[in-house]
Protein backbone atom coordinates (compact mmCIF):
# COMPACT_ATOMS: atom_id res chain seq x y z
CA UNK A 1 0.00 0.00 0.00
CA UNK A 2 1.12 3.57 -0.41
CA UNK A 3 0.10 6.96 0.89
CA UNK A 4 -2.41 7.27 -1.92
CA UNK A 5 -4.39 4.33 -0.56
CA UNK A 6 -5.40 6.37 2.47
CA UNK A 7 -7.59 9.39 2.88
CA UNK A 8 -6.15 11.87 5.37
CA UNK A 9 -8.70 13.30 7.77
CA UNK A 10 -7.62 16.63 9.22
CA UNK A 11 -9.15 18.85 11.85
CA UNK A 12 -7.68 22.02 13.31
CA UNK A 13 -7.87 23.94 16.54
CA UNK A 14 -6.76 27.42 15.63
CA UNK A 15 -5.73 29.76 18.44
CA UNK A 16 -5.76 33.43 17.73
CA UNK A 17 -4.95 36.20 20.18
CA UNK A 18 -7.41 39.07 20.27
CA UNK A 19 -6.30 42.68 19.79
CA UNK A 20 -7.58 44.11 23.05
CA UNK A 21 -5.78 46.80 25.04
CA UNK A 22 -5.92 44.90 28.30
CA UNK A 23 -5.85 41.22 29.21
CA UNK A 24 -9.05 39.20 29.38
CA UNK A 25 -9.35 38.98 33.17
CA UNK A 26 -7.20 41.85 34.45
CA UNK A 27 -6.11 45.34 33.46
CA UNK A 28 -2.51 44.56 32.44
CA UNK A 29 -1.55 45.56 28.91
CA UNK A 30 -2.14 42.83 26.33
CA UNK A 31 0.37 44.29 23.89
CA UNK A 32 2.98 41.96 22.47
CA UNK A 33 6.49 42.20 23.91
CA UNK A 34 7.69 44.10 26.95
CA UNK A 35 10.51 43.31 29.39
CA UNK A 36 10.03 40.00 31.18
CA UNK A 37 7.28 40.00 33.81
CA UNK A 38 6.50 43.70 33.45
CA UNK A 39 2.94 43.16 32.21
CA UNK A 40 1.75 41.17 35.20
CA UNK A 41 -0.31 41.83 38.28
CA UNK A 42 -1.55 39.75 41.21
CA UNK A 43 -4.49 38.53 39.07
CA UNK A 44 -2.68 37.21 36.00
CA UNK A 45 0.17 35.81 38.08
CA UNK A 46 -2.35 33.79 40.09
CA UNK A 47 -1.68 35.24 43.53
CA UNK A 48 -3.86 34.08 46.42
CA UNK A 49 -7.11 35.99 46.80
CA UNK A 50 -7.24 37.46 43.31
CA UNK A 51 -10.25 37.28 41.02
CA UNK A 52 -10.88 37.53 37.28
CA UNK A 53 -12.85 40.47 35.86
CA UNK A 54 -14.02 39.96 32.30
CA UNK A 55 -12.95 42.35 29.59
CA UNK A 56 -16.00 43.54 27.67
CA UNK A 57 -14.14 43.97 24.40
CA UNK A 58 -12.71 40.44 24.54
CA UNK A 59 -16.27 39.11 24.59
CA UNK A 60 -17.29 41.43 21.75
CA UNK A 61 -14.29 40.40 19.68
CA UNK A 62 -15.02 36.72 20.18
CA UNK A 63 -18.55 37.38 18.92
CA UNK A 64 -17.17 39.31 15.95
CA UNK A 65 -14.82 36.42 15.19
CA UNK A 66 -17.87 34.18 15.28
CA UNK A 67 -19.74 36.33 12.79
CA UNK A 68 -16.68 36.52 10.55
CA UNK A 69 -16.64 32.71 10.40
CA UNK A 70 -20.37 32.35 9.91
CA UNK A 71 -21.06 31.06 13.40
CA UNK A 72 -24.21 31.18 15.42
CA UNK A 73 -23.70 33.06 18.70
CA UNK A 74 -24.57 31.51 22.04
CA UNK A 75 -26.57 33.99 24.08
CA UNK A 76 -25.54 32.42 27.38
CA UNK A 77 -22.04 31.07 27.47
CA UNK A 78 -20.32 29.67 30.55
CA UNK A 79 -16.67 30.00 31.55
CA UNK A 80 -15.14 26.86 32.94
CA UNK A 81 -11.90 26.09 34.67
CA UNK A 82 -9.60 23.66 32.89
CA UNK A 83 -7.34 22.33 35.61
CA UNK A 84 -3.78 21.21 34.95
CA UNK A 85 -0.32 21.87 36.31
CA UNK A 86 2.25 23.48 34.07
CA UNK A 87 4.76 26.21 34.91
CA UNK A 88 3.39 28.58 32.27
CA UNK A 89 -0.05 28.50 33.92
CA UNK A 90 0.26 30.25 37.30
CA UNK A 91 -3.28 29.54 38.60
CA UNK A 92 -2.94 25.88 37.59
CA UNK A 93 -6.19 26.28 35.72
CA UNK A 94 -7.02 28.00 32.49
CA UNK A 95 -10.30 29.86 32.25
CA UNK A 96 -11.95 28.55 29.09
CA UNK A 97 -15.37 27.46 27.84
CA UNK A 98 -16.24 23.79 27.48
CA UNK A 99 -19.94 23.03 27.32
CA UNK A 100 -21.45 26.39 26.47
CA UNK A 101 -18.91 28.20 24.25
CA UNK A 102 -19.58 31.70 22.98
CA UNK A 103 -19.87 30.74 19.27
CA UNK A 104 -21.58 27.66 17.93
CA UNK A 105 -21.45 26.02 14.50
CA UNK A 106 -20.16 28.00 11.53
CA UNK A 107 -18.71 27.49 8.07
CA UNK A 108 -15.76 28.89 6.14
CA UNK A 109 -15.52 28.55 2.34
CA UNK A 110 -12.00 28.02 1.02
CA UNK A 111 -10.59 28.25 -2.50
CA UNK A 112 -7.28 26.79 -3.52
CA UNK A 113 -5.38 25.31 -6.40
CA UNK A 114 -4.30 21.71 -6.53
CA UNK A 115 -2.28 20.37 -9.46
CA UNK A 116 -3.13 23.54 -11.34
CA UNK A 117 -6.82 22.97 -10.82
CA UNK A 118 -9.04 25.52 -9.07
CA UNK A 119 -10.96 23.96 -6.19
CA UNK A 120 -13.38 25.19 -3.58
CA UNK A 121 -14.86 23.64 -0.47
CA UNK A 122 -16.60 24.62 2.75
CA UNK A 123 -15.03 23.71 6.08
CA UNK A 124 -17.41 23.48 9.01
CA UNK A 125 -16.56 25.17 12.29
CA UNK A 126 -17.64 23.18 15.34
CA UNK A 127 -17.46 26.10 17.75
CA UNK A 128 -15.29 28.99 18.93
CA UNK A 129 -14.50 29.55 22.57
CA UNK A 130 -12.84 32.38 24.42
CA UNK A 131 -9.99 31.63 26.79
CA UNK A 132 -6.80 33.04 28.28
CA UNK A 133 -3.32 32.51 26.92
CA UNK A 134 -0.51 31.02 29.01
CA UNK A 135 2.93 32.45 29.76
CA UNK A 136 6.26 31.78 28.14
CA UNK A 137 9.06 29.50 29.30
CA UNK A 138 12.65 30.33 28.53
CA UNK A 139 14.90 27.32 28.85
CA UNK A 140 18.30 27.85 30.39
CA UNK A 141 20.25 24.71 29.48
CA UNK A 142 23.40 25.89 31.20
CA UNK A 143 21.80 26.06 34.64
CA UNK A 144 19.24 23.34 33.99
CA UNK A 145 16.31 25.61 34.75
CA UNK A 146 13.36 27.11 32.93
CA UNK A 147 12.42 30.74 33.50
CA UNK A 148 8.77 31.76 33.55
CA UNK A 149 7.69 35.03 31.97
CA UNK A 150 3.99 35.68 32.58
CA UNK A 151 3.56 38.68 30.24
CA UNK A 152 1.38 36.61 27.89
CA UNK A 153 -0.65 35.08 30.73
CA UNK A 154 -4.23 36.21 30.39
CA UNK A 155 -4.06 37.63 26.88
CA UNK A 156 -7.45 36.87 25.34
CA UNK A 157 -7.53 34.10 22.81
CA UNK A 158 -10.20 32.55 20.63
CA UNK A 159 -9.89 28.86 19.90
CA UNK A 160 -11.56 27.97 16.62
CA UNK A 161 -12.34 24.28 16.47
CA UNK A 162 -13.09 22.87 13.03
CA UNK A 163 -14.83 19.68 12.07
CA UNK A 164 -12.45 17.08 10.59
CA UNK A 165 -13.38 18.24 7.10
CA UNK A 166 -9.98 18.70 5.50
CA UNK A 167 -8.44 16.01 3.33
CA UNK A 168 -5.07 17.47 2.33
CA UNK A 169 -2.29 19.65 3.70
CA UNK A 170 -3.22 22.27 1.11
CA UNK A 171 -6.79 22.46 2.39
CA UNK A 172 -5.56 22.89 5.95
CA UNK A 173 -3.04 25.54 4.98
CA UNK A 174 -5.67 27.41 2.98
CA UNK A 175 -8.16 27.27 5.82
CA UNK A 176 -5.71 28.82 8.28
CA UNK A 177 -4.83 31.48 5.75
CA UNK A 178 -8.49 32.19 5.06
CA UNK A 179 -9.41 32.35 8.74
CA UNK A 180 -6.46 34.63 9.46
CA UNK A 181 -7.66 36.97 6.74
CA UNK A 182 -11.23 36.93 8.03
CA UNK A 183 -10.09 37.71 11.57
CA UNK A 184 -7.88 40.51 10.31
CA UNK A 185 -10.77 42.03 8.37
CA UNK A 186 -13.05 41.67 11.38
CA UNK A 187 -10.42 43.71 13.21
CA UNK A 188 -10.17 41.26 16.10
CA UNK A 189 -6.70 39.81 15.57
CA UNK A 190 -3.57 40.74 13.68
CA UNK A 191 -2.83 37.03 13.14
CA UNK A 192 0.93 37.46 13.12
CA UNK A 193 2.38 33.99 13.03
CA UNK A 194 5.82 35.23 14.06
CA UNK A 195 4.44 36.74 17.28
CA UNK A 196 2.45 33.62 18.02
CA UNK A 197 -0.79 35.52 17.69
CA UNK A 198 -2.17 32.71 15.52
CA UNK A 199 -1.18 29.07 15.87
CA UNK A 200 -2.83 25.70 15.44
CA UNK A 201 -3.16 22.28 16.96
CA UNK A 202 -3.41 19.83 14.09
CA UNK A 203 -5.35 16.56 14.31
CA UNK A 204 -4.48 14.03 11.65
CA UNK A 205 -5.73 10.51 11.06
CA UNK A 206 -5.82 8.22 8.06
CA UNK A 207 -8.63 6.05 6.78
CA UNK A 208 -8.53 3.49 4.02
CA UNK A 209 -10.39 4.48 0.89
CA UNK A 210 -13.00 1.81 1.51
CA UNK A 211 -13.33 2.48 5.24
CA UNK A 212 -16.43 4.02 6.78
CA UNK A 213 -14.90 5.20 10.03
CA UNK A 214 -12.09 7.57 10.81
CA UNK A 215 -8.81 6.14 12.00
CA UNK A 216 -7.01 6.93 15.27
CA UNK A 217 -5.69 10.45 15.29
CA UNK A 218 -2.54 12.11 16.50
CA UNK A 219 -2.67 15.68 17.76
CA UNK A 220 0.27 17.88 16.90
CA UNK A 221 0.38 20.83 19.28
CA UNK A 222 1.22 24.43 18.70
CA UNK A 223 2.24 24.52 15.04
CA UNK A 224 3.02 28.13 14.35
CA UNK A 225 3.45 28.84 10.65
CA UNK A 226 1.53 28.10 7.48
CA UNK A 227 4.52 26.26 6.12
CA UNK A 228 4.86 24.18 9.28
CA UNK A 229 1.18 23.28 9.22
CA UNK A 230 1.62 21.98 5.68
CA UNK A 231 4.80 20.08 6.51
CA UNK A 232 3.41 18.68 9.75
CA UNK A 233 0.46 17.16 7.96
CA UNK A 234 2.60 15.87 5.11
CA UNK A 235 4.92 14.22 7.61
CA UNK A 236 2.09 12.75 9.71
CA UNK A 237 0.43 11.26 6.64
CA UNK A 238 3.65 9.50 5.73
CA UNK A 239 4.35 8.39 9.29
CA UNK A 240 0.89 7.00 9.88
CA UNK A 241 0.75 5.34 6.44
CA UNK A 242 3.99 3.53 7.22
CA UNK A 243 2.63 2.30 10.54
CA UNK A 244 -0.62 1.13 8.96
CA UNK A 245 1.20 -0.53 6.07
CA UNK A 246 3.22 -2.55 8.54
CA UNK A 247 -0.07 -3.65 10.09
CA UNK A 248 0.56 -1.48 13.10
CA UNK A 249 -1.79 0.83 14.96
CA UNK A 250 -1.56 4.58 15.26
CA UNK A 251 -1.47 5.62 18.91
CA UNK A 252 -3.72 8.44 20.02
CA UNK A 253 -1.19 10.88 21.42
CA UNK A 254 0.04 14.42 21.55
CA UNK A 255 3.01 15.24 19.34
CA UNK A 256 5.20 18.20 18.63
CA UNK A 257 6.54 19.40 15.26
CA UNK A 258 10.25 20.02 15.00
CA UNK A 259 10.60 22.53 12.17
CA UNK A 260 14.36 22.01 11.87
CA UNK A 261 14.09 18.28 11.28
CA UNK A 262 10.68 18.42 9.62
CA UNK A 263 9.40 15.66 11.91
CA UNK A 264 6.82 15.20 14.64
CA UNK A 265 7.69 13.63 17.98
CA UNK A 266 5.62 12.36 20.88
CA UNK A 267 5.59 14.93 23.71
CA UNK A 268 7.05 13.78 26.99
CA UNK A 269 5.44 16.43 29.11
CA UNK A 270 1.97 15.34 28.07
CA UNK A 271 2.43 11.74 29.12
CA UNK A 272 0.61 12.37 32.41
CA UNK A 273 -2.79 10.75 32.43
CA UNK A 274 -4.80 13.91 32.42
CA UNK A 275 -8.21 14.73 33.53
CA UNK A 276 -8.88 18.44 33.23
CA UNK A 277 -11.71 18.34 35.78
CA UNK A 278 -13.58 21.10 34.00
CA UNK A 279 -16.22 22.88 36.07
CA UNK A 280 -17.93 26.28 35.81
CA UNK A 281 -15.67 29.01 37.20
CA UNK A 282 -17.41 30.19 40.38
CA UNK A 283 -15.59 33.55 40.22
CA UNK A 284 -17.36 34.61 37.05
CA UNK A 285 -20.98 35.58 36.67
CA UNK A 286 -22.01 34.39 33.25
CA UNK A 287 -22.86 37.00 30.67
CA UNK A 288 -26.19 37.26 28.87
CA UNK A 289 -26.22 38.53 25.33
CA UNK A 290 -29.35 40.23 24.04
CA UNK A 291 -30.49 40.40 20.44
CA UNK A 292 -29.78 44.11 20.34
CA UNK A 293 -26.20 43.54 21.56
CA UNK A 294 -25.64 40.96 18.86
CA UNK A 295 -27.17 43.15 16.18
CA UNK A 296 -24.98 46.05 17.23
CA UNK A 297 -21.84 43.90 17.14
CA UNK A 298 -22.77 42.36 13.82
CA UNK A 299 -23.40 45.82 12.36
CA UNK A 300 -20.03 47.00 13.63
CA UNK A 301 -18.28 44.32 11.60
CA UNK A 302 -16.29 46.08 8.87
CA UNK A 303 -16.47 45.13 5.18
CA UNK A 304 -15.28 41.55 4.83
CA UNK A 305 -13.08 40.20 1.97
CA UNK A 306 -16.07 38.88 0.03
CA UNK A 307 -17.82 42.24 0.05
CA UNK A 308 -14.66 44.06 -0.93
CA UNK A 309 -13.99 41.67 -3.79
CA UNK A 310 -17.48 42.21 -5.16
CA UNK A 311 -17.09 45.95 -4.82
CA UNK A 312 -13.74 45.98 -6.63
CA UNK A 313 -15.06 43.83 -9.44
CA UNK A 314 -17.92 46.30 -9.67
CA UNK A 315 -15.28 48.95 -10.38
CA UNK A 316 -14.39 46.91 -13.45
CA UNK A 317 -11.26 45.42 -11.93
CA UNK A 318 -10.57 41.87 -13.14
CA UNK A 319 -11.16 39.19 -10.49
CA UNK A 320 -7.54 38.12 -10.41
CA UNK A 321 -6.31 41.64 -9.81
CA UNK A 322 -9.03 42.34 -7.25
CA UNK A 323 -8.07 39.21 -5.31
CA UNK A 324 -4.46 40.30 -5.04
CA UNK A 325 -5.67 43.47 -3.36
CA UNK A 326 -8.21 41.75 -1.09
CA UNK A 327 -5.91 38.97 0.05
CA UNK A 328 -3.72 41.32 2.04
CA UNK A 329 -5.82 43.33 4.44
CA UNK A 330 -3.27 46.12 4.72
CA UNK A 331 -3.10 46.47 0.91
CA UNK A 332 -6.85 46.53 0.64
CA UNK A 333 -6.99 49.17 3.36
CA UNK A 334 -4.36 51.20 1.51
CA UNK A 335 -6.38 50.94 -1.68
CA UNK A 336 -9.56 51.98 0.11
CA UNK A 337 -7.87 55.03 1.55
CA UNK A 338 -6.28 55.93 -1.79
CA UNK A 339 -9.75 55.87 -3.32
CA UNK A 340 -10.92 58.58 -0.95
CA UNK A 341 -8.18 60.84 -2.34
CA UNK A 342 -8.29 59.85 -5.99
CA UNK A 343 -11.29 58.03 -7.32
CA UNK A 344 -9.70 56.06 -10.13
CA UNK A 345 -9.75 52.42 -9.00
CA UNK A 346 -8.27 50.88 -12.13
CA UNK A 347 -5.31 53.14 -12.19
CA UNK A 348 -4.69 52.72 -8.46
CA UNK A 349 -4.91 48.93 -8.73
CA UNK A 350 -2.39 48.94 -11.55
CA UNK A 351 0.05 50.90 -9.50
CA UNK A 352 -0.52 48.98 -6.25
CA UNK A 353 -0.41 45.53 -7.82
CA UNK A 354 2.54 46.53 -9.95
CA UNK A 355 4.92 48.83 -8.21
CA UNK A 356 3.91 48.52 -4.57
CA UNK A 357 3.48 44.73 -4.51
CA UNK A 358 6.80 44.34 -6.34
CA UNK A 359 8.63 46.31 -3.66
CA UNK A 360 6.81 44.48 -0.86
CA UNK A 361 7.88 41.17 -2.38
CA UNK A 362 11.45 42.47 -2.63
CA UNK A 363 11.24 43.21 1.09
CA UNK A 364 11.74 46.92 0.53
CA UNK A 365 8.44 47.84 2.12
CA UNK A 366 7.08 46.69 5.49
CA UNK A 367 3.38 46.97 4.84
CA UNK A 368 2.70 47.09 8.60
CA UNK A 369 4.78 50.24 8.89
CA UNK A 370 4.97 51.89 5.46
CA UNK A 371 6.92 55.13 5.25
CA UNK A 372 4.47 56.60 2.71
CA UNK A 373 0.86 57.61 3.19
CA UNK A 374 -2.12 56.53 1.13
CA UNK A 375 -2.77 60.17 0.28
CA UNK A 376 0.70 60.48 -1.26
CA UNK A 377 0.31 57.28 -3.26
CA UNK A 378 -3.03 58.54 -4.59
CA UNK A 379 -1.44 61.85 -5.51
CA UNK A 380 1.42 60.14 -7.32
CA UNK A 381 -0.92 57.95 -9.35
CA UNK A 382 -3.03 60.97 -10.22
CA UNK A 383 0.08 62.93 -11.29
CA UNK A 384 1.04 60.10 -13.54
CA UNK A 385 -2.46 59.83 -15.01
CA UNK A 386 -2.67 63.58 -15.68
CA UNK A 387 0.76 63.65 -17.29
CA UNK A 388 2.41 65.67 -14.59
CA UNK A 389 5.08 63.01 -14.51
CA UNK A 390 5.92 60.24 -16.89
CA UNK A 391 5.07 56.64 -16.01
CA UNK A 392 8.75 55.85 -15.64
CA UNK A 393 9.42 58.83 -13.44
CA UNK A 394 6.43 57.86 -11.26
CA UNK A 395 8.25 54.62 -10.41
CA UNK A 396 11.40 56.54 -9.59
CA UNK A 397 9.46 58.89 -7.34
CA UNK A 398 7.80 55.97 -5.58
CA UNK A 399 11.18 54.36 -4.92
CA UNK A 400 12.08 57.39 -2.85
CA UNK A 401 8.68 57.44 -1.13
CA UNK A 402 9.04 53.79 -0.20
CA UNK A 403 12.41 54.49 1.29
CA UNK A 404 11.76 57.65 3.27
CA UNK A 405 8.32 58.93 2.41
CA UNK A 406 7.55 62.42 1.21
CA UNK A 407 5.29 64.42 -1.06
CA UNK A 408 5.51 63.06 -4.64
CA UNK A 409 5.20 66.52 -6.14
CA UNK A 410 8.12 67.81 -4.11
CA UNK A 411 10.20 64.77 -5.06
CA UNK A 412 9.33 65.26 -8.75
CA UNK A 413 10.23 68.93 -8.59
CA UNK A 414 13.53 68.30 -6.85
CA UNK A 415 14.49 65.79 -9.53
CA UNK A 416 13.30 67.84 -12.49
CA UNK A 417 10.60 65.31 -13.32
CA UNK A 418 7.62 67.61 -13.06
CA UNK A 419 5.95 68.39 -16.37
CA UNK A 420 4.59 71.93 -16.72
CA UNK A 421 2.43 72.14 -19.88
CA UNK A 422 3.88 75.21 -21.59
CA UNK A 423 2.39 75.27 -25.15
CA UNK A 424 4.21 78.44 -26.22
CA UNK A 425 7.55 76.85 -25.38
CA UNK A 426 6.53 73.64 -27.25
CA UNK A 427 5.76 75.56 -30.43
CA UNK A 428 8.94 77.56 -30.07
CA UNK A 429 11.07 74.41 -29.81
CA UNK A 430 9.26 72.72 -32.74
CA UNK A 431 9.84 75.76 -34.95
CA UNK A 432 13.52 75.62 -34.05
CA UNK A 433 13.88 71.85 -34.61
CA UNK A 434 12.18 72.13 -38.01
CA UNK A 435 14.44 75.02 -38.94
CA UNK A 436 17.56 73.12 -37.87
CA UNK A 437 16.65 69.85 -39.64
CA UNK A 438 15.55 70.83 -43.08
CA UNK A 439 16.72 67.55 -44.61
CA UNK A 440 14.73 65.38 -42.28
CA UNK A 441 11.65 67.54 -42.67
CA UNK A 442 11.84 67.18 -46.43
CA UNK A 443 12.22 63.42 -46.14
CA UNK A 444 9.09 63.32 -43.98
CA UNK A 445 7.15 65.44 -46.43
CA UNK A 446 8.16 63.14 -49.27
CA UNK A 447 6.52 60.28 -47.40
CA UNK A 448 9.38 58.86 -45.33
CA UNK A 449 7.48 58.94 -42.02
CA UNK A 450 10.25 57.00 -40.24
CA UNK A 451 12.13 60.23 -39.59
CA UNK A 452 9.26 61.43 -37.39
CA UNK A 453 10.88 59.57 -34.51
CA UNK A 454 14.11 61.45 -35.00
CA UNK A 455 12.35 64.80 -35.01
CA UNK A 456 10.30 63.81 -32.01
CA UNK A 457 13.49 62.88 -30.15
CA UNK A 458 15.03 66.25 -30.90
CA UNK A 459 11.97 68.03 -29.50
CA UNK A 460 11.70 65.83 -26.42
CA UNK A 461 15.32 66.43 -25.51
CA UNK A 462 14.71 70.17 -25.44
CA UNK A 463 11.29 69.91 -23.80
CA UNK A 464 12.01 67.61 -20.89
CA UNK A 465 9.78 68.60 -17.95
CA UNK A 466 7.85 71.13 -20.01
CA UNK A 467 5.45 68.87 -21.87
CA UNK A 468 4.37 65.29 -22.12
CA UNK A 469 5.40 63.19 -25.14
CA UNK A 470 1.75 63.11 -26.14
CA UNK A 471 1.50 66.90 -26.42
CA UNK A 472 4.81 67.13 -28.26
CA UNK A 473 3.71 64.47 -30.71
CA UNK A 474 0.38 66.13 -31.43
CA UNK A 475 1.91 69.55 -31.93
CA UNK A 476 4.77 68.24 -34.08
CA UNK A 477 2.36 66.31 -36.34
CA UNK A 478 0.13 69.35 -36.66
CA UNK A 479 3.10 71.53 -37.61
CA UNK A 480 4.50 69.07 -40.15
CA UNK A 481 1.10 68.70 -41.81
CA UNK A 482 0.79 72.47 -42.16
CA UNK A 483 4.11 72.88 -43.90
Amino acid at each position, binding site marked *: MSVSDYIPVIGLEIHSELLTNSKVFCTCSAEFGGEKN*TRCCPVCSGMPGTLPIINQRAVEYAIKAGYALGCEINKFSVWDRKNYFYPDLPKAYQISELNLPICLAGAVPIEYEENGEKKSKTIRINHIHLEEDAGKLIHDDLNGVSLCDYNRCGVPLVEIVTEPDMRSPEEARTLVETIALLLQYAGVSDCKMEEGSIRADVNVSLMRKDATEFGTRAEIKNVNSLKSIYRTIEYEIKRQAQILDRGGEVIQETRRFDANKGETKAMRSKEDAHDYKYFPDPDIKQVNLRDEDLERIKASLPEMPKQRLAKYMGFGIPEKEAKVIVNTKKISDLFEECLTHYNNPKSLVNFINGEIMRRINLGEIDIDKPSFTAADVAKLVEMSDTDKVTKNDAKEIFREMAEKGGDPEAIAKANGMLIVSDTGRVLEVIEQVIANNEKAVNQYKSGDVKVFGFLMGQCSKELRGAATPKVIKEELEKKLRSL
Partner: protein
Amino acid sequence: MELDMVKYLAKLAKLEFTDEELEQAVKDMTSIIEIMDTIKDIDITYDPYKDNHNVYLEDLRPDEAMPSLATDKLLQNAVNQENCFVVPKVVE
Protein backbone atom coordinates in the same frame (compact mmCIF):
# COMPACT_ATOMS: atom_id res chain seq x y z
CA MET B 1 -12.80 3.75 48.51
CA GLU B 2 -9.99 1.69 47.03
CA LEU B 3 -6.30 2.31 47.53
CA ASP B 4 -5.81 2.66 43.77
CA MET B 5 -8.38 5.41 43.63
CA VAL B 6 -6.70 7.37 46.41
CA LYS B 7 -3.36 6.94 44.62
CA TYR B 8 -4.92 8.20 41.40
CA LEU B 9 -6.47 11.21 43.13
CA ALA B 10 -3.15 11.99 44.80
CA LYS B 11 -1.49 11.94 41.41
CA LEU B 12 -4.10 14.30 39.97
CA ALA B 13 -3.68 16.59 42.98
CA LYS B 14 0.14 16.49 42.88
CA LEU B 15 0.37 15.11 46.39
CA GLU B 16 2.42 12.23 47.68
CA PHE B 17 1.76 10.09 50.72
CA THR B 18 3.74 7.53 52.66
CA ASP B 19 2.23 4.05 52.78
CA GLU B 20 1.03 4.73 56.27
CA GLU B 21 -0.58 8.01 55.27
CA LEU B 22 -2.19 6.30 52.30
CA GLU B 23 -3.76 3.72 54.53
CA GLN B 24 -5.21 6.46 56.75
CA ALA B 25 -6.35 8.42 53.69
CA VAL B 26 -8.25 5.40 52.38
CA LYS B 27 -10.00 5.09 55.75
CA ASP B 28 -10.84 8.78 55.94
CA MET B 29 -11.98 9.01 52.37
CA THR B 30 -14.16 5.92 52.71
CA SER B 31 -15.85 7.49 55.69
CA ILE B 32 -16.27 10.86 53.96
CA ILE B 33 -17.61 9.29 50.78
CA GLU B 34 -20.31 7.62 52.88
CA ILE B 35 -21.75 11.07 53.58
CA MET B 36 -21.34 12.14 49.97
CA ASP B 37 -23.12 9.05 48.74
CA THR B 38 -26.34 10.18 50.40
CA ILE B 39 -27.01 12.28 47.31
CA LYS B 40 -26.28 9.53 44.83
CA ASP B 41 -29.83 8.26 44.54
CA ILE B 42 -31.70 11.53 44.24
CA ASP B 43 -32.77 12.44 40.78
CA ILE B 44 -31.51 15.94 40.28
CA THR B 45 -29.39 17.70 37.69
CA TYR B 46 -27.78 21.08 37.56
CA ASP B 47 -29.29 23.62 35.20
CA PRO B 48 -26.72 26.29 34.28
CA TYR B 49 -29.45 28.51 32.83
CA LYS B 50 -30.99 28.84 36.30
CA ASP B 51 -27.74 30.32 37.60
CA ASN B 52 -28.32 33.49 35.67
CA HIS B 53 -27.33 36.63 37.52
CA ASN B 54 -28.61 38.98 34.81
CA VAL B 55 -25.18 40.25 33.91
CA TYR B 56 -25.08 41.90 30.50
CA LEU B 57 -22.32 43.01 28.19
CA GLU B 58 -22.41 46.60 29.44
CA ASP B 59 -21.80 45.41 33.00
CA LEU B 60 -18.37 44.09 32.07
CA ARG B 61 -15.08 45.89 32.57
CA PRO B 62 -14.23 48.39 29.83
CA ASP B 63 -11.07 47.45 27.93
CA GLU B 64 -8.57 49.85 29.43
CA ALA B 65 -5.01 48.86 30.26
CA MET B 66 -3.70 50.08 33.60
CA PRO B 67 -0.21 49.93 35.10
CA SER B 68 0.99 46.47 36.11
CA LEU B 69 2.66 45.47 39.38
CA ALA B 70 6.37 46.32 39.70
CA THR B 71 8.41 43.24 38.76
CA ASP B 72 10.25 43.15 42.09
CA LYS B 73 6.96 43.06 43.97
CA LEU B 74 5.66 40.37 41.65
CA LEU B 75 8.69 38.23 42.43
CA GLN B 76 9.05 39.09 46.13
CA ASN B 77 7.79 35.70 47.33
CA ALA B 78 9.56 33.60 44.70
CA VAL B 79 12.92 32.14 43.80
CA ASN B 80 13.78 34.32 40.83
CA GLN B 81 16.44 34.92 38.24
CA GLU B 82 16.63 37.48 35.42
CA ASN B 83 13.24 38.88 36.47
CA CYS B 84 11.62 35.47 36.02
CA PHE B 85 10.18 32.73 38.21
CA VAL B 86 12.47 29.71 38.20
CA VAL B 87 11.52 26.05 37.78
CA PRO B 88 13.61 22.95 37.12
CA LYS B 89 14.15 22.66 33.37
CA VAL B 90 10.96 21.60 31.65
CA VAL B 91 11.24 19.08 28.81
CA GLU B 92 8.52 19.45 26.19
